[in-house]
């Protein structure tokens, strides 16, 4: 039990506990050492664990991923920070061609227990390339896990679990809510293979993850004020996707709205919607609706609110679904 912590403080605490718990856990990334990370997620850890375990790297994301793979094959558990998700692309070859495959291509002889953390998503008026949500690109890659917390408690519990996991995990931190609320943290890990039902309801199922859950929960409130009872599910682990929880809910409600910041097309929402069609075809009373970013580049910040799904979008989509 802790003081009330913000999400970024919970991340920091999870890293701290993971390092205390396992001497093989090391941190690496740009500006994570004396500077404690541009969002302070690693603040204090270099002083506590020393230069050997908290490594400021040169400015090279391909390298960060590459040495993480190399270390991981030797049993070290690297937790790498990519400063912003917009800069993760140079790491993709290493993540896709090596991290995700090391276990399979050596039939378990070598493994790749690494975590790549990256702040992600829009809404903080950041410069260009600092606000994208490209989780779908990683969700498609076999061998990876993709995890996105939506609260301090889940940030702590999921990150601890991610670091414990013997396989590579992409851990995306919705920076818009890094400091949005505080919670007391119980130092338990949380499972990496289930959705979390944040609110039960029976008229419609709202599915989201990361920062968009704020708007989704707010929309559920608005709907409640109209007498509509919405169930709200935090997907949390995008890959592997726990369709069971979502399907159970939608079999009950018959309706589903999926909310995500990322571009609508070919996004995670499409997989969930398809999964619902595959498993709840007869129970669906209306088509699953996606409330999502447009199929456009994330606009520079003056217009970003026009891109990000808003409460009224979710409410309208829900009402439309109910009226189907």
């Amino acid at each position: 039990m802790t003081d009330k912590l913000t999400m970024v403080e919970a991340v920091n605490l999870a890293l701290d506990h993971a390092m205390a718990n396992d001497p093989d856990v090391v941190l690496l990334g740009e500006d994570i050492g004396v500077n404690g990370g541009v969002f302070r997620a690693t603040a204090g850890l270099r002083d506590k664990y020393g230069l050997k375990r908290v490594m400021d790297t040169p400015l090279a994301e391909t390298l960060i991923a590459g040495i993480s793979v190399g270390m991981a094959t030797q049993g070290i558990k690297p937790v790498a920070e990519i400063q912003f998700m917009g800069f993760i692309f140079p790491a993709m070859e290493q993540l896709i061609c090596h991290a995700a495959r090391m276990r399979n291509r050596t039939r378990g002889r070598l493994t790749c227990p690494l975590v790549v953390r990256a702040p992600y998503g829009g809404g903080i008026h950041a410069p260009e390339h600092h606000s994208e949500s490209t989780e779908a690109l990683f969700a498609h890659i076999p061998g990876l896990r993709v995890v996105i917390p939506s609260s301090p408690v889940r940030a702590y519990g999921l990150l601890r679990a991610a670091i414990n996991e013997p396989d590579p995990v992409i851990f995306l931190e919705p920076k818009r809510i890094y400091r949005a609320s505080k919670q007391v943290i119980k130092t338990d890990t949380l499972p990496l293979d289930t959705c979390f039902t944040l609110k039960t309801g029976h008229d419609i199922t709202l599915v989201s993850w990361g920062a968009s859950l704020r708007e989704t929960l707010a929309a559920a409130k608005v709907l409640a004020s109209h007498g509509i009872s919405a169930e709200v599910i935090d997907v949390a682990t995008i890959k592997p996707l726990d369709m069971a929880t979502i399907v159970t809910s939608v079999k009950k409600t018959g309706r589903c709205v999926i909310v995500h910041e990322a571009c609508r097309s070919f996004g995670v929402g499409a997989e969930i919607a398809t999964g619902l069609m595959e498993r709840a075809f007869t129970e669906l009373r209306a088509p699953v609706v996606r409330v999502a970013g447009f199929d456009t580049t994330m606009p520079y910040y003056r217009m970003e609110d026009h891109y990000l799904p808003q409460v009224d979008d979710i409410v309208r989509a829900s009402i439309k679904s109910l009226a189907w």
Partner: protein
Amino acid sequence: MITDDQSAVVQFLDAEGGAVQNLPEWVNDQTTLIDYYQAMVTARLSDQKAVALQRTGKMGTYPSCLGQEAISLVCAALLRQDDVLIPYYRDLPGLLRRGIPLSDVLLYWGGDERGSASNAWGQDLPNCVPIATQAGHAAGVATAIRIRHDAGDPMRVALCALGDGATSKGDFAEALNLAGAWQLPVVYIINNNQWAISVPRAIQSGAPTLAQKGVAAGLPSFQVDGNDVIALHEVISAAIDRARQGKGATVIEAISYRLSDHTTADDASRYRNSDELQEAWQKEPIKRLRHFLHQRGLWDENKEQVLKEQAERMIKKAVQTYLNTPLPTIADLFDYHYANTPDQLEEQKRDALNREELRQKMQHNEAVGGHQHD
């Protein structure tokens, strides 16, 4: 064993503006240096204003170029209009020199794509955020120039700026390697301001100099005092000439210091000691050139006053233009992705426009409703 010969950093003026070696001919024509001085002062005041706009909530995160004005300026000043500048985010002085209005630059950092859109930009590339990716663009621009070049004509030149941290990213090595293999008309200039956010130069690379990364690509490579406009002018113009004559690329490491925080979102006091900063202030380029001009009787307090007033007027107007720029339209979000916008995107645009209309009606209703409750 393959070794690297460490030669001296090219320098003409010491920190106090005194000459450390014979000055080149062109210095005698005072206009160039006075021009450099005026431009640097204007850039610094513009930069200060940009920081102030951010601090007062009128602009987003901004990376100051404080103390590095000379490098960017001299590069831009030595390019021809039809050359291509591939800048990075500390190139405000160079952008202004290329004729790009300050209001464009503010607009960009103010979160508006139109800051990179005006015709004043010509064929220059917009600011590049993903570090070192512009190194590839510059090699590509130079390749385009070479493809279109008519034998016998002087070459147009591409000039690419980047930071010391950027030299660690593979993009830089790949681009240099190509520039060497293809003898491209491109100049790479490293603004070695000693820091990449919180990571000092010494941690960034084990290389004794960053210039020698050019040697690994078979390119002539130089270190130059980045606070010394005369040295910069000499080294950069030689590199541009070389490219212009079709002899290929050059790498220049210009040694400077980042006198500011990394950006307005950064607090350098967390990782940088103030002694180092104080020392660096002694060497900064504007003071140095002012001393030199003063010593030669080419500058005085009066002129300084006039220059500052002129600059402030220009800045004030630019800020007005920036602040008065209306928001982009909803349609703008969609209309510039494809020359031929796909139906699917047109459909999303229609939805977005409808939503906007709806929202405005609702706001209007609420406002009207609100009044009624008064």
